[in-house]
């Protein structure tokens, strides 16, 4: 869909012993992992496990207490200039006077000073991007009137139009219906494979991503385990991560992560998302 991102031998994203604590509790403890260029990755963990904090630290919004983030081998603002980002729970008001194509155009030059002067090259670039995320059909509608899945497509186009090396998305699948979830996952996978952009998607439920993830970064208790799904989503690995016994149950191609034991050791995934249990065919 786009020109291939610049080739490079450096890892797209390296997170090196990143630690961060808020008063009273450690959010990230020596989180370490790296992602190759063009990989499609899930950042998985229950609510409050530090996914958003980790993404915000990678983005430079939140300075870490120790450790380092490198993007394409570069630390600091130079590395961060090649990130595309889709924030969590973005609310696009229905009265916002902005069409889908205006939002995508802001991704191209929203940081520039002065008024935007329409140019044919700019319009063509925006059209190409809308086409790439299958959003041309609703390009002239107000963003606030679009469905959740359509809004995600437009926000992804907004984040991709500068051809970043790394695309970060914070819970892009939350509040979408099953069909829209599948469509967005397919789109993001295509971005990773065809455009050689590393895509890191945070989610509290790994199941929609299970068949397409190249790698998983699993966060619990501020610690991270990373690797392929087979390597990470195992009883031994997750039990070590959580610090108590965890059962990993595979049912009909879905994975359930359940804390066993006494009632006060409430299951991590099931407690917060009872729907996952109900969804088992």
């Amino acid at each position, binding site marked *: 869909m786009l020109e291939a991102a610049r080739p490079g031998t450096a890892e797209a994203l390296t997170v090196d012993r990143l630690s961060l604590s808020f008063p009273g509790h450690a959010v990230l403890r020596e989180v370490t992992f790296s992602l190759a260029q063009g990989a499609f990755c899930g950042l998985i963990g229950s609510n409050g496990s530090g996914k958003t904090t980790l993404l915000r630290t990678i983005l430079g919004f939140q300075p870490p207490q120790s450790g380092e983030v490198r993007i394409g081998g570069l630390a600091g603002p130079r590395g961060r200039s090649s990130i595309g980002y889709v924030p969590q729970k973005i609310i696009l008001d229905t009265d916002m006077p902005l069409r889908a194509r*205006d939002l995508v155009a802001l991704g191209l030059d929203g940081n520039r000073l*002065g008024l935007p002067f329409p140019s044919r090259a700019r319009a063509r670039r925006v059209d190409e991007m809308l086409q790439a995320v299958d959003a041309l059909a609703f390009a002239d509608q107000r963003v606030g009137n679009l469905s959740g899945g359509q809004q995600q497509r437009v926000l992804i186009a907004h984040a991709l139009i500068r051809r970043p090396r790394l695309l970060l998305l914070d819970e892009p699948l939350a509040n979408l219906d099953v069909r829209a979830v599948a469509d967005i996952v397919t789109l993001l996978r295509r971005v990773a494979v065809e455009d050689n952009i590393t895509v890191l998607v945070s989610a509290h439920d790994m199941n929609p991503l299970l068949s397409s993830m190249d790698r998983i970064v699993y966060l619990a208790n501020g610690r991270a385990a990373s690797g392929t799904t087979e390597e990470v989503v195992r009883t031994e690995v997750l039990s070590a991560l959580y610090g108590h016994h965890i059962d990993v149950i595979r049912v009909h191609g879905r994975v359930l992560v359940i804390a066993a034991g006494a009632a006060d050791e409430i299951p991590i995934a099931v407690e917060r998302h009872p729907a996952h249990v109900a969804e088992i065919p």
Partner: protein
Amino acid sequence: MSLLNAIVSPGFFTSGPVLTAAVVGGGAAIVSGLVGVFTVIRGQSFAGHSLADVSSAGGSVSFLLGINPLLGFLGVAVLAAGAMELAGLRRAQERDLVTGIVLGAGLGLTALFLYFDMSTQSTTGAAISVMFGSMFAIPASLIPLSLGVGAGAVLITGVIYRPLLLSSLHPDLAAVRGVPVRLVGLLHLLVLSLAVTLSAMTIGAILSTALLIGPAATALRLARRPGHAILLAMLIGLGATWGGILLAYDSYDWTSGHSWPVSFFIVTIIFLAYLLSGLPTLRSRA
């Protein structure tokens, strides 16, 4: 000609006070339309209203000291905007609370200064002028300064237009593109205080919110693009202001020689436009 005379009373276009009101009021309407659209989409309507109310303390002081009232309104509005930014409150609820408390304190000062105005200069008109405006009493000497303030507001907003739009949409979307979100927010607050000062001078501190928020809210219902919303808000504000001036001038003939306040007509036209924009046939187009 008789019909034209019925609509536009003789002398309307040659009256000095009418022309001054049309120029200063028109400038205020254009600036308010531009700034109002951003104020509404950023959810800062209450802040805008508060800046206007607090600025009335400056307006009333200037009556007392005999200085240019525009400078009085402006000085206090800019100070209040700076204080609001320094408070740096992130949570909307907390922000509204502090804004409301500062607003109360500001109006308290206004009450004191207006009391001094009345007791020392026996001018009962000061209170009405500061709070509800008296457009036909604006001195022509105020035109250059008010146009300068308006041009400054338009210029600043034009320069930060895209970063402001992006950070109004979502601060993180702007921050990831390297936009200094707080600086942009501060500049918008500064521009807001300029806009509020201009409309406080024309339709009064209390009513200036109507000119800031009303046309913008109406335009946001009808326009699909930011530029169109801004142009529409400017036109609605301009139409209401000039229409209000005309009606107030005409009202001299309907009533027994006492024209009704311009502010009343302006605010009423803005209100009617807002009601009209809610009609389903108009809304469905956007």
